[in-house]
């Protein structure tokens, strides 16, 4: 306690010294009660022998750690002392360095290591996020299907014999300039323009297109004639739009293009068109089957 009085009397403790002083005081308070006062005075005296502030601070921090160890080792010694009044509590103190202490120290080490890793990871993530180029929006492909059949090309090839080929190559204009004293030289004043050539149009290939229809195995219309419509003697024709791929299968639901006037017959026509998927004859272009949409007329007619 003497040293504390000296320090406080001198009044020379600056902020940095106050920290070391506080650490020593804090460490001594955490020490066992019978050792606290002694350790505080001893540590203050030993700390005073150190010259630099950093050394004193390190010493004070070490004392904090020493307090933890001493307090840990002191507890079983006191217990042993109370259990055996004649025995030496100091001897039991030496046995207290068990594995619990090491596991506690290891836990502290792991905790500090984890904190370091966390800080570095956060720092690294922040740096990469700040300096990384902005992400562009992901490209989402969209598929656009052309449901309209290509228009029939009716252009006829031009008659090449009637085309007048005109090749116009203008004559360059040259002007002669005569030098009075020197030899005569020829000066090109205007550059000739490139010749204008009318080239004949290239003949366009005519695609031979054969529209599709019902193919082999297409369902029979009579099988789809509704019994109710037969009993009501309803007859009529329904025009259905169908879109067929090269394999003769529908690639979209058939729709009514022109109704028969009877809902039952129109529904039956749609069912027929749907059931015929896979049995359509695809449209061909130059003999190659292509996808196309065309109209199918379904006629429901009663038989005598």
């Amino acid at each position, binding site marked *: 306690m*003497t*040293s504390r009085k*000296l320090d406080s009397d001198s009044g020379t403790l600056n902020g940095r010294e106050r920290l070391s002083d506080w650490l020593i005081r804090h460490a001594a308070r955490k020490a066992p009660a019978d*050792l606290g006062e*002694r*350790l505080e*005075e*001893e*540590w*203050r*005296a*030993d700390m*005073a*022998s*150190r010259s630099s502030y950093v050394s004193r601070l*390190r*010493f004070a*921090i*070490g*004392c*904090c*750690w*020493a307090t933890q*160890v*001493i307090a840990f*080792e002191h507890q079983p*010694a006191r217990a042993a002392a109370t259990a055996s009044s004649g025995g*030496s*509590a*100091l*001897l039991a*103190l*030496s*046995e207290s*360095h068990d594995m619990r202490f090491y596991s506690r120290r290891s836990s502290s080490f792991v905790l500090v290591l984890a904190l370091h890793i966390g800080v570095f990871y956060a720092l690294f993530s922040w740096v990469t996020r700040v300096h990384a180029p902005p992400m562009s929006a992901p490209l989402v492909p969209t598929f656009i299907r052309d449901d309209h059949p290509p228009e029939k090309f009716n252009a006829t090839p031009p008659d090449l014999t009637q085309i007048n080929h005109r090749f116009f190559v203008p004559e360059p204009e040259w002007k002669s300039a005569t030098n009075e004293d020197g030899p005569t030289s020829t000066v090109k004043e205007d550059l000739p323009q490139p010749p204008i050539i009318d080239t004949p149009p290239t003949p366009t290939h005519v695609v031979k297109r054969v529209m599709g229809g019902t193919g082999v195995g297409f369902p029979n219309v009579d099988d789809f004639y509704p019994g109710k419509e037969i009993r009501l003697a309803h007859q009529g024709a329904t025009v259905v739009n169908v879109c067929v791929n090269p394999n003769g299968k529908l690639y979209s639901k058939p729709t009514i293009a022109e109704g028969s006037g009877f809902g039952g017959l129109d529904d039956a026509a749609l069912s027929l068109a749907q059931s015929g998927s896979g049995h359509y004859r695809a449209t061909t272009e130059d003999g190659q089957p292509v996808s196309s949409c065309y109209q199918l007329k379904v006629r429901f007619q009663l038989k005598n």
Partner: protein
Amino acid sequence: MGKKDGDVRISLQTLRVLEAFLENPSEQLSGADVHQRCAIASGTLYPILLRLESAGWFVSQWEAIDPSSAGRPRRRLYRLTSTGLKRASEVFGSFNRGVLA
């Protein structure tokens, strides 16, 4: 380390502390003196001193000075006991190191 020698767990740092005292067994050393000789951090040094004192290898007493006249606080001085000297010599003997007896 971690070798047990009777009452005291002998670690490398404990050996260094004992070695500092064995240089002159009759000399009294404070914690600061031991630190200067062994360069052991305070967090390790003081538990060792207290442990050896508790085991009877050391005795300690306050420095006999007047702090106000000396201008510094009194120190806690440690000294090897006869038991401590004997046991420390045995320890170092087991390590095949020549020590003062």
